[in-house]
């Protein structure tokens, strides 16, 4: 009889000790809210940035594709660069972003550009336009399995709108951005576009990995949709949808492949094209491989790598055994880091490692470290580091204005460009501005550079740029290695994905 209370008491004590221990440890964990920068400084490592919010590692397993946009063509990009969050501008530049007070009031870099401005006579209020405001919708992937993946596009649009509102108005109306989240889900994209149809005048700077969902909705209600990039065929074929980085999967520029043929001929005869088996990456990678073959490459190895793959060594082993000297990968930068680590471990050093502007991202540079040294990137936009590019400096400064610490990237750049396109066309229409006239005006745009932000993109015909440049990572910073401004060539038709 007396044993029971003793046992119970002992058990209670043990339980209390366990709880106390757990609490102690938990409190230790949660209580230490040291700033990572402080910790890093104390530990003697340079951190460089305070971690921003958002953007975890790119892929995950069965939650489906990691919004890979993988466009082929030029500014070709496989997504997952998500972004936002980190301080500072790209790779090397820590000396602070340019100030918004340098923004010009006149000329082609002003928020209104220097194009024609029509009279406001006959200007009518309509869906999304009131006496004081013109509402622009921006539908981008913010939530979903990879949080914040395309927040940069929304920030790019908001940045331009802030710039514009600080200087001007369209027929007495300021611009307002209706931010919508497509959550990397076609259904959410569809719902967002239905909302935009009801409440906004136009959609500007949108970016979603599953942009097929809302394409029909946009076309049915005649909503002008000037996107950052179009990903899926439904969006590419939507008659009211355009993009400042248009994509036709079956058309690939030969500008940068020819450059590599001239500089790294031997390597191009033993090329490998790898891609993540998600999103649009496979079809784009296959189209690129086909185009390269037509231009004179020899692609000895084409392989898709599963989203959940974490052991890249077998793929490296295969490339070694085939004598590969030129490697291209389409996928998120986190996987690029893993692939390059595996390559280093297996002592496989190809002459060329090439990827699109997905890895033109400060976080790739940090994570890859020395493994990324010598990587090449092809892209159709200018470098963020180019201080002589006035429009680029405006984008960078106003981006910091709307979200201090945000990282600039390609999607944000094209979203800024899309918003500028909208503003200039709206001003040129003046009192005639309505959805239909805007669509006609944008359709007539053949060459658009966003005031020098990027190579000529053919907005109306929905064709990507034939021009690109090649940059290389050396000593932790990116440098242009191809000559002149841009390398220009022609589009190669591959018949894949068209």
């Amino acid at each position, binding site marked *: 009889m007396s044993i029971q209370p003793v046992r119970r008491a002992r058990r209670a004590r043990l339980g209390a000790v*366990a709880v106390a221990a*757990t609490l102690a*440890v938990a409190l230790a*964990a949660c209580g*230490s809210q*040291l700033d990572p920068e402080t*910790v890093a400084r104390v530990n003697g490592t340079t951190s460089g940035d305070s*971690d*921003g919010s*958002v*953007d*975890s*590692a790119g*892929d*995950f*397993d*069965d*939650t*489906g*594709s990691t919004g890979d946009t993988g466009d082929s063509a030029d500014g070709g990009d496989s997504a997952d660069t998500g972004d936002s*969050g980190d301080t500072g501008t790209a790779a090397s530049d820590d000396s602070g972003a340019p100030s918004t007070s340098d923004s010009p009031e006149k000329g082609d870099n002003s928020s209104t550009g220097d194009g024609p401005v029509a009279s406001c006579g006959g200007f009518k209020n309509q869906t999304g336009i009131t006496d004081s405001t013109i509402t622009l919708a921006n539908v981008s992937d*913010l*939530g979903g399995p*990879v*949080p914040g993946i395309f927040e940069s596009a929304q920030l790019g649009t908001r940045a331009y709108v802030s710039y514009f509102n600080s200087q001007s108005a369209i027929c007495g109306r300021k611009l307002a951005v209706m931010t919508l*989240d497509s*959550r990397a*889900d*076609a*259904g*959410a994209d*569809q*719902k*967002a576009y*239905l909302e935009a149809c*009801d409440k906004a005048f136009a959609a500007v700077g949108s970016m979603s990995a*599953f942009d*097929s*969902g809302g394409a*029909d909705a946009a076309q049915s209600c005649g909503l002008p949709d000037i996107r950052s990039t179009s990903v899926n065929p*439904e969006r590419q074929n939507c008659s009211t949808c355009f993009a400042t980085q248009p994509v036709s999967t079956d058309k690939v520029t030969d500008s940068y492949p020819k450059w590599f043929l001239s500089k790294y001929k031997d390597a191009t005869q033993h090329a490998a094209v790898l891609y993540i088996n*998600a999103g*649009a990456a496979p079809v784009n990678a296959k189209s690129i491989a086909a185009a390269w073959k037509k231009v004179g490459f020899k692609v000895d190895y084409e*392989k*898709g790598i*599963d989203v*959940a*793959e*974490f*052991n890249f*060594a*077998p793929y490296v*082993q*295969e490339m070694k*055994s085939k004598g590969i000297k030129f490697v291209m990968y389409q996928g998120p930068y*986190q996987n690029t880091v*893993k692939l390059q680590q595996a390559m280093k*471990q*297996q*002592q496989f050093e190809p002459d060329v490692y090439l990827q699109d502007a997905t890895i033109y991202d400060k976080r790739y540079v940090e994570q890859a470290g020395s493994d990324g040294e010598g990587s090449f990137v092809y892209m159709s936009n200018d470098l963020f580091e180019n201080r002589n590019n006035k429009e680029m400096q405006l984008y960078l400064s106003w981006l910091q204005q709307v979200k201090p610490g945000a990282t600039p990237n390609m999607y944000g750049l094209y979203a800024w460009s899309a918003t500028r396109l909208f503003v200039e066309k709206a001003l040129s229409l003046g009192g005639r501005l309505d959805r239909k006239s805007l669509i006609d005006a944008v359709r007539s745009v053949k060459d658009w550079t966003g005031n020098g932000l990027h190579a000529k993109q053919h907005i109306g015909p929905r064709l990507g740029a034939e021009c690109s440049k090649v940059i290389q990572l050396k000593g932790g910073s990116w440098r242009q290695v191809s000559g002149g401004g841009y390398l220009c060539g022609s589009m190669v038709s591959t018949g894949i994905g068209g």
Partner: protein
Amino acid sequence: MSGFIAFVVLGIFTGAAYAIAASGLVLTYATTRVFNIAHGAFGMVLAFTFWDFSVRQGLPTWLSLVLVLGVVAPAIGWFIQRFVTRGLGDAPVSVSLVVTVGLLVGLIGAAQYLWPPESRLLMPFKPESGYQVGATYVTAHQLITIVCSVLVATLLYVLLNRTRVGTAMRASVDNPELLRLFGGRPDRAAQLAWAIGISLAALGGILLAPVVGLDYYALTLLVINAYAAAMLGRLKSLPLTFAGAMALGILESLAVGYLPTEGLIAGIRPVIPALFLFLLLVLLPQAQLRVGQVKGIVSAPVPSLLRSLVSGVVLLVAVMVVTTGMSEANLLLVGTAATFAMVMLSLVLLTGYGGHVSLAQLTFAGVGALAYAKLAEPNLYGLFLTTLIAAGVGALVALPVLRLTGLYLALATLAFGVLMDKMIFQEEWAFGFNGTLSAERLSVLGVQIESTSGYVLVMVVFLVLMSIAVLALRRGVVGRLLVAMRDSPSACGTLGLDQRWFRVGLFALSAGLAGLAGALFAGLRGTIGAADFQFFNSLPLLLLAVVFGVTSVTGACLGGIGLMLLPELQANNPELAGLLFVVLGFGAVALGRDPNGLANHLFTLGRWLRATGEPWVRSRIPVWAPALGDPLRPSSDPSAGEGRIETSEESAHAAS
């Protein structure tokens, strides 16, 4: 030949990672009969904890390891066993699976909330060292993983088979009462098992995170690949589990080297673990029936035909009223809720009445949507064909696993879900890679329903008709058979009932209903793709069905609305997104033991209101009180209502 060896060596690392994960799984199952689907999620959370200690707070690595593996992980294991999974081994499999799936979702939410999304890096151990092995190269980190997996497997084997504690652990699951009589402490044994199991999950997470990345989903779902390894050991033999894990890892590596790059076979590479799992399940010897226990549960009351008809009409009218003047965007949401409600209704049939857990119900909806889009017959005939096709697929899935019950059946549906997601749906003749198909809106009797509001109403009509059909089934002979087979398969076997073909029929019917829902959804959306039916989303579907009540139509409808609202709420409050998952997951853990869910509480409330309110109303309005009375009173026919089934535990409690 050297190439072959190189691939084998490289595959051993993958195998070692699987072995560590699978060993922990087998330990907790073998000692407490709970299959911890959240094993990977624990590993993920503890990997984040390790990052927090060693990187964010800057503690030395050895100290962080000791704290995580020696203090935090065992403490969590003890806590989970004491407060969450105690007694779950004796509960019906549907309950234990739902609780662990709830843990999985809750842990993902907790990780997202505690460590909001940002770029985090965990360095591998000894990143600069490595060793040349033939034509290939093994890093120090990979070697450490391999050594750890061998150590873990050996030590566990010794623990379970050569020590008193281990013997007590194995005894506590077979017969805890007998163990107590011999002076053993089954609860202690179970707590120790869970403490070690979670520590192993932590070890696996810490070793994998530098390679996989600190990603909420990747680490969690990687463990699913380890289930196949655990199956080879039949969830009790550690040496076989280790062998299975190694075999799987090497197979995956060889597949990279030797499978063709194009064609159907090329698509097999990512689904090798799922195929492995499915094949093992099919070839496993039949699990023994547990005799002598009636696992009954008190079910939600089943309404009479008149009551269901009236409720259906009321629902339809309510939806008509609510959707008048609604924007297209919100109508889309209502239609989505109706779709989810219909899929959950199929779960009511399968899980609520039949007691079988399906971890891939959305996949059947995907099959229906695919068939509807491909057939291009947007009319009632097309819908009928679609339902038949989805039912056929359901039967096909159930056929190879005729002999399986409970846990193994659920795992078979999981393997099926992964196979469809990664291989079949991606084929050119299906949705195509990342592709979408267009689907037209339904036309009924020659009249096409173009408007979204009209289409949504048609969907609700289908929901009502399906509900009435399911309830009618429940009230009849088939329903009684279902409940009997759920409660005591051995008794049914004794009575001569052939349960296997019945189960195939049940699966087929449930899949058909889900397929019908998918087809209607395809018409609503206009374009439909594989991404709309991702396998992972079947997990919150199951959880919400159970939370709201998987034994009643009301539960299914409420669950459908809840599942529709979940991503909307998460998108509107991104800071609270993780918290919502936590509420859902741990809510399911709390409510999972009662599959009648919140709906049953609503019914109880309704009955109480009627009991207190009706006399008050009668005394004040005697004129129309009689009309209020009889037609709506629950039928006194015992076959229509659900009597109380006393479980063996309840009678035991009553007796003691």
